[in-house]
């Protein structure tokens, strides 16, 4: 079963993503045929070559690592803080009264507006970006956890209690597993936000990272390399999302 199954899977993935290949071919064709100016859109093959050059001359990997480190740190802090706050709000009316209004007021603020504030507070380095990503990812995590826990059927908790489970056990064994799909949806949104805020803050001000690389290559008119870096950050965002989907499926396997 394994080999045949693997082959079918590879073919499935190929058929699914074939349109991206078609787009790459059309891109190559319109630039080679001179339908689109080469300065506005460098040919796909040129962009690929630039990608290889960026990879080999040691520009791409350190910048990508710097970005991913910031994104991961901010996201991890947001997941820890956001799930704790969301759970607190869902389980305790007192916490809800204290924190709920602040969360509501913070909700409509476009989080990129905080870029100048974190600059003033934390300067131009890693710390400012990590705090920005943390603040931006906090809300989706809080909302996912809060709505997930609030949406759990009360009867489930009551029956666990009547069977002798302690309050702590009910939270851990009943409420959290039942709320998991919504918590994971919140985390998925947060992951996308982390990438967006990471690139935005690095584009606006930074001295390394993928956003910085894209901006400085663009300023120098190195367009093929700029396109290569943009495709890199797009691919990283896509891979993170797919990886996240795979983990979610695994975590939710028990739900049948």
């Amino acid at each position: 079963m394994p080999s045949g199954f693997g082959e079918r899977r590879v073919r499935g993935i190929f058929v699914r993503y074939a349109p991206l290949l078609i787009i790459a071919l059309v891109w190559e064709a319109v630039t080679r045929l001179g339908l689109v100016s080469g300065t506005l859109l460098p040919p796909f093959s040129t962009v690929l070559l630039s990608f290889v050059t960026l990879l080999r001359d040691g520009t791409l990997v350190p910048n990508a690592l710097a970005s991913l480190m910031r994104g991961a740190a901010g996201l991890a802090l947001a997941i820890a803080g956001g799930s704790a706050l969301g759970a607190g709000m869902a389980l305790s009316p007192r916490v809800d009264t204290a924190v709920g209004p602040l969360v509501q007021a913070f909700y409509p603020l476009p989080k990129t507006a905080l870029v100048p504030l974190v600059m003033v507070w934390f300067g131009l380095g890693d710390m400012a970006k990590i705090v920005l990503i943390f603040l931006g990812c906090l809300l989706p995590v809080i909302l996912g956890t809060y709505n997930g826990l609030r949406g759990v059927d009360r009867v489930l908790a009551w029956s666990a209690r009547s069977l002798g489970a302690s309050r702590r056990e009910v939270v851990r064994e009943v409420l959290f597993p039942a709320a998991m799909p919504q918590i994971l949806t919140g985390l998925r949104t947060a992951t996308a936000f982390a990438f967006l805020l990471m690139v935005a803050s690095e584009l606006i001000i930074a001295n390394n990272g993928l956003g910085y690389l894209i901006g400085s290559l663009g300023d120098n008119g190195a367009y093929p390399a700029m396109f290569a870096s943009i495709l890199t950050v797009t691919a990283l965002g896509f891979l993170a999302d797919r990886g996240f989907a795979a983990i979610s499926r695994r975590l939710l396997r028990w739900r049948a």
Partner: protein
Amino acid sequence: MNGSKLKRLHRAALRSVSFLVLLALWEIASRFDLIRPFLLPPLASVLARLASDLVSGAFALNAGLTLYRTLAGFALASLVGIPLGILISRHRLVGWFVEPIVSVGFPMPTIAFLPIFMLWFGVFDLSKIVMTAFSAVFTVIAAADGGTRGVERPLVWSAESLGARHGDVFLEVMLPAAMPQILTGLQVALPLALIVEVASEMLMGGAGLGGMMVQAASYADSAGVYAGIVETAAVGAVAVALMARLRRRVLRWHPEAAR
């Protein structure tokens, strides 16, 4: 005053406590020089800045420009995204072609494309509008696709068995049934467009709330930065409220409106 009104008032008072505590802490911190005014300017100076921005018309100009470009991009994204999302749910070939693009576009940090749009569309409004449209469109497509796909078949069958024509089934049954989910997608996409619009303004400078805030930060004008955050939040709140209103209006026939 009756009991339920009193209860509501009590609740509102309780809910405003954390705001008051926060504002009091702010005032104490700056009054007793616990935090440098560069990091946390006195509350009064931020309020004064807000007032002068309101009176001088700076707020109206910057907020108006930001809101205009956000809504223009958002409208473009809806005009393209809703029909495309419906199309990919109903035609297999179109779906096969567009779906992988959406699954790449959905989680991607769209702001990374801003240098490309600046290269293609210049450094004025057009590139910002295309940028916001691009940042919102994938969410809209996904919602329209999911919405029309999720319409219950029996609903369509019964309309057909009652003799409705193909076009009528679509307009009178499918589209209304998909509307709640499409609107949810729009409600997610609009704040996304605003986030990206503000970032684009910060990158490209010029008028608009983002450009104004970056300028304030580079002049070490902290009161301007704080006022800018409040002003941007106000624009965000207006955008969120507009969408909620639109939803209630469009879904007046829907059971959720009665809640």
